[in-house]
């Protein structure tokens, strides 16, 4: 085993001093032959059996090789060219002597044995180390200061590869954190919304602060992204915790819709908030009141909407008309539905029949209003998924947040098994809400500790390319096919 190193040592000497080469076997001979193709000399060789003791250090001096009497780690990796032309140091030799016994017992792949602290300190104080370190650190510092990326590709060809491999942190970066000592600390963020008129304004609503019972239960704060000021622009409070609100309609004819867990949906005129304009009892099949936990209106629709309930079902409903009330039930979740989002990214193809739901059952499900079975189930989370929202600009992108503090971005055109980007918020908080800004470039999320965090999303992820819509058509076709196949298999198993 040590012969290879011996051979190497011998070959070096040969080239320098032209001595006769001695080979252990045919394999060694062949190696020597290949070296000659580089044009180096080859002398007459006698095949003689020789045993070279494995050496770790070979000196360049004119003396013959000084065989150190240590069996060093070269035996651990026989297939490699271990010889180092170095001066045999007295101290390392001593150390290797001590290590020798241990190393002989070890397998080939064993990591090098550690030195004791004393030995290390000894080395660190030695002159050789200091000279080495002086030079080495100088070179390294120079190299570190040069921040030139010689591999940069201006043509952008590399970007497609990079997207798949970039760290999540580079895809989403934290821009701001909004929190108010007095009003938001220790309250859960219950709802978030971006202003359509002033894109830098964000309103967040909070529930009660259990530690401070004499303070109002419900708080809403308006935050401003534009300025570095860390306090809210406006503060509103009310006696009851605020859970969720939604304004539907156009500028002239709009209503505030509220739904609560008793199944009642009220629409209010903003001019008269003392009494609802109109109420609708949401009952399913004339008997069961739907305990609504979430609600969403498709883009541009003021009549039809979807609601999620505590029992895990999603219902479509409409406000007006002969069929006012619940229309269809979509069953699939095994736990209360926490969030709903209707597809809203307008483009060449209309996907407004798609909606997604988040639930306590750790999944996000993709639905179409055309079918009561889910199209697909996203099962990457290990905690309650608290909210989900489609990107307002990218047709295949949506964000979801869960109880472990994770914010995930899913791109259906990229991968339906794992999120395309993911970030975990510091601190052990659960993320309760997620809202894309109207531009689709930022995401706001609220946590259980009253913090609102705004993340910037990297361009490659959030800006849709022109073909995203047609790609999504294909993706949906595949999803449909897979779902039908899955159903067939399940049916077959039932029969069998």
């Amino acid at each position, binding site marked *: 085993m040590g012969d290879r190193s011996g051979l190497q040592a011998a070959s070096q000497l040969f080239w320098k001093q032209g001595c006769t080469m001695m080979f252990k076997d045919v394999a060694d001979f062949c190696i020597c032959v290949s070296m000659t193709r580089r044009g180096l000399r080859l002398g007459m060789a006698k095949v003689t059996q020789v045993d070279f003791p494995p050496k770790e250090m070979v000196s360049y001096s004119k003396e013959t090789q000084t065989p150190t009497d240590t069996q060093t780690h070269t035996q651990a990796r026989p297939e490699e060219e271990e010889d180092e032309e*170095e001066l045999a140091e007295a101290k390392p030799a001593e150390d290797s002597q001590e290590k020798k016994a241990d190393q002989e017992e070890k397998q080939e792949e064993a990591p090098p044995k550690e030195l004791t602290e004393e030995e290390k300190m000894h080395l660190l104080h030695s002159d050789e180390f200091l000279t080495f370190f002086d030079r080495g650190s100088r070179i390294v510092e120079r190299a570190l200061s040069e921040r030139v990326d010689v591999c940069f590709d201006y043509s952008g060809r590399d970007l497609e590869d990079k997207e798949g491999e970039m*760290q999540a942190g580079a895809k989403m970066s934290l821009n701001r954190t909004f929190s108010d000592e007095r009003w938001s600390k220790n309250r859960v963020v219950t709802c978030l919304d971006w202003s359509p008129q002033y894109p830098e304004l964000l309103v967040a609503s909070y529930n009660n602060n259990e530690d401070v019972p004499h303070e109002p239960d419900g708080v809403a704060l308006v935050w401003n992204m534009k300025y570095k000021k860390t306090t809210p622009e406006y503060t509103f409070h009310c006696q009851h915790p605020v859970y969720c609100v939604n304004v539907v309609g156009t500028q002239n004819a709009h209503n505030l819709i509220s739904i609560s867990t008793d199944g009642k949906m009220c629409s209010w005129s903003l001019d008269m908030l003392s009494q609802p304009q109109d109420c609708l009892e949401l009952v399913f099949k004339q008997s069961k009141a739907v305990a609504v936990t979430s609600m969403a209106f498709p883009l541009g629709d003021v009549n039809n909407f979807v609601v999620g309930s505590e029992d895990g079902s999603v219902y479509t409903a409409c406000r007006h008309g002969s069929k006012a009330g619940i229309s269809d039930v979509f069953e699939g979740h095994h736990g209360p539905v926490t969030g709903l989002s209707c597809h809203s990214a307008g483009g060449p193809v209309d996907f407004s029949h798609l909606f997604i739901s988040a639930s306590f059952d750790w999944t996000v499900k993709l639905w179409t209003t055309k079918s009561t079975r889910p199209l697909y189930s996203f099962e990457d989370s290990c905690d309650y998924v608290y909210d989900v929202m489609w990107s307002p600009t990218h047709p295949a992108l949506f964000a979801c947040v869960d109880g472990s503090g994770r914010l995930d971005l899913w791109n259906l055109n990229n991968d339906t098994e794992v999120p395309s980007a993911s970030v975990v918020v510091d601190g052990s908080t659960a993320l309760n809400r997620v809202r894309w800004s109207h531009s689709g470039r930022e995401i706001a999320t609220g946590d259980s500790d009253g913090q609102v965090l705004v993340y910037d999303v990297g361009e490659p992820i959030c800006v849709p390319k022109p073909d995203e819509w047609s790609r999504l058509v294909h993706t949906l076709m595949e999803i449909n096919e897979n779902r039908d196949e899955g159903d067939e298999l399940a049916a077959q198993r039932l029969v069998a």
Partner: protein
Amino acid sequence: MAEVEETLKRIQSQKGVQGITIVNAEGIPIKTTLDNSSTVQYAGLIHQLVMKARSTVRDIDPQNDLTFLRIRSKKSGIMIAPDKDYFLIVIQNPSD
């Protein structure tokens, strides 16, 4: 010795530096800013690589020797300043 510590700290605090390890000629780590398992892993792998690189240089020209080795990868980089007795290994994160 205090100088060595100071220099190490300075290098470590540079932008993009993930960790520094110093190994001796046998691949045994002497000083490191990384955790134990990473240090052992890097030390073993890099030691083999440096040996190979050095012998390549020497084979081409026996009077030559390896002075600096730098690996650039998609996600990180490794710089190695080898010497007869020790290697200084700096692990980088150029995306910073």
